């Protein structure tokens, strides 16, 4: 049990800067998810915490102790790898016991701890098998087991579920959440799957090109995305983003197609400023044909998903607009509709920097 502090950490590979100064203090027992697209530096950051990658700049502290120059073995962490990285020549039991044996823990206690972990993970029947005799899901559990028997200060996960099929992934996700609640061990979890991030995290660190775009609870990240990047990355289908301009009185956003959307609060200081307007597809509803505060769209495609339906619309100026409606509405392709954003559904972003405008 410990806090993990990452202070202005940087990483360069030669001239390439992969991590450009990340700051975060992870609370004791907190579950932090590192979320971002491929190549944004998630694994690099995690591996620096593990000690598998050198730290170019800044400091990492685990449990209040700066670990920059400690070997992985001295950091008291456990890690679950994407490819599980089990020891192929050892049985499941030995895989889990390896770290305990090295630490000189008495045989009886090793037995007890491994049995306990095997029970939790339902691996009891497989203790004498080799990893090659297990299914992907079972190997994944062994990797988890190897981490939990150690009772480390922190867990590190690098996309542990990405090699599993969809159903197993959901199941393991729930299991990881349950385990972490029960064990209360500080965890860093790398993924590019937003559903995993939203469901597992106490807080999410959204990364892009080696910087932290936003750090917040899953709801904060969803409801108040700090940048266009976060807005586009979280939510499915992604948020609609339209070019616009704040009118001369600072009371509404004007869109190129001539629509005028009233702002919840007047922003006189921003009058005339170009902005990006974000509206989530699920935060729009069909309005009366002649409603002035909405968008008139022509329906191009209807995707019925069962619980809800995604409507792909086209605005008069050719921009596309997605609307997600509950249930199975009676919308057809080539229909003309008026849709209006719900209260509080508008997100404004700076047209140049892409940062959220409060």
């Amino acid at each position, binding site marked *: 049990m410990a806090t993990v502090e990452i202070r202005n950490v940087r990483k360069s590979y030669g001239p390439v800067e992969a991590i450009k100064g990340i700051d975060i203090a992870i609370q004791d027992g907190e579950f932090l998810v590192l979320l971002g697209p491929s190549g944004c530096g998630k694994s690099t950051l995690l591996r620096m915490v*593990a*000690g*598998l990658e050198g730290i170019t700049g800044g400091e990492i502290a685990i449990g209040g102790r700066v670990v920059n120059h400690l*070997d*992985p*073995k001295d950091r008291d*962490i*456990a*890690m679950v*790898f*994407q*490819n599980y*990285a*089990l*020891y*192929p*020549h050892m049985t499941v039991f030995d895989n889990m016991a*390896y*770290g305990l044996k*090295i*630490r000189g823990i008495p045989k009886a206690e090793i037995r007890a701890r491994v049995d306990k972990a095997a029970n939790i993970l339902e691996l009891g029947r497989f203790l004498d098998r080799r990893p*090659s005799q297990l299914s992907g899901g079972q190997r994944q559990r062994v990797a988890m087991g*190897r981490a939990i028997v*150690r009772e480390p200060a922190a867990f590190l996960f690098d996309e542990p579920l990405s090699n599993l099929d969809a159903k197993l992934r959901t199941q393991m996700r729930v299991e990881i959440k349950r385990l972490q609640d029960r064990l209360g061990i500080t965890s860093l979890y790398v993924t590019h799957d937003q559903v995993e991030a939203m469901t597992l995290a106490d807080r999410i660190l959204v990364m892009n090109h080696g910087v932290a775009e936003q750090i917040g609870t899953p709801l904060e990240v969803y409801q108040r995305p700090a940048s266009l990047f976060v807005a586009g990355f979280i939510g499915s289908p992604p948020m609609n983003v339209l070019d616009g301009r704040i009118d001369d009185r600072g009371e509404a956003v004007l869109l190129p197609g001539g629509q005028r959307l009233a702002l919840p609060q007047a922003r006189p200081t921003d009058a005339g400023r170009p902005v990006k307007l974000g509206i989530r597809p699920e935060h729009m509803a069909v309005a009366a044909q002649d409603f002035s505060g909405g968008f008139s769209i022509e329906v191009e495609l209807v995707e019925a998903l069962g619980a809800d339906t995604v409507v792909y619309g086209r605005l008069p100026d050719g921009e596309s607009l997605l609307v997600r409606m509950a249930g199975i509405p009676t919308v057809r392709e080539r229909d003309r509709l008026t849709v209006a954003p719900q209260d509080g559904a508008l997100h404004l972003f700076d047209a140049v920097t892409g940062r959220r405008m409060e």
Partner: protein
Amino acid sequence: MQRRVTFDNRLLPYLLLAPQVAVTLVFFIWPAANAIWQSVHLQDAFGIRSEFVWFENFTNVLGDPNYLDTLKVTVVFSLAVTVLAMGLALLLAVLADSKIKGARAYKTLLIWPYALAPAVAAVLWMFIFNPDIGSFGRALRALGYDWDYRLNGGQALTMVIMAASWKQVSYNFIFFLAGLQAIPRSVMEAASIDGAGPVRRFWTITFPLLSPTTFFLLVVDMVYAFFETFGTIHALTQGGPGKATETLIFRVYQDGVVNNDLGGSSAQSVILMVIVIALTAVQFRFVERKVHYS
């Protein structure tokens, strides 16, 4: 499921196999059969008449105390060459596998000795260890050490062991390096996170995962030491001084070609063949059980 190739022409498969079969027949089965035939015959000095003598050649060979000495030399020589060549190659491969500067050049240099003919390699060693003209040999003498492998049997054996191992190190190195590179990096990382230092990682992870390679090289190196070191010994010491570096294979040549005792030499060949077959069988039976194939 296995894929089976079928041929329309029933003769074609035999035709395709024929060259391989022919090579095996001409260069292995025929001489081996010949050796077996000769090992139970006694020929006159001109090779005109021969007489069937049952196992007389064998009893003569095995009853000769000199032969047992040769056997002892062979065992020491083969074990030393195998252990030295494998140990050194493994050490070098581990170094080459870790991130060191100039790893590429280093790997290329290590592979070169394999491309040298045994006689050329032996001449090289002579230039180093010859007490009169060899650089190292002269240095040893200058330091007051009485180095002369032409007179001292122990020194001669040490030298041929070194020369023979040196040639085989390259071959072993390539296989060990490939084996090491096949071990997933994340497995080693997992072990270091689990608390294992470099030495423990080597003995508990690397070495067991390399065991198929090690086993294969063990068989190859034993066969090498028994048979293929003839050229090295011939060029360096001719089995001398005395019989200090005379191995079984060298003696086969000595008795058969130099001393013209074809029957005795053939009997020795047959014994040698049996020894190597037995060794290989034992290795497969007992060592392979401990080998982990992934």
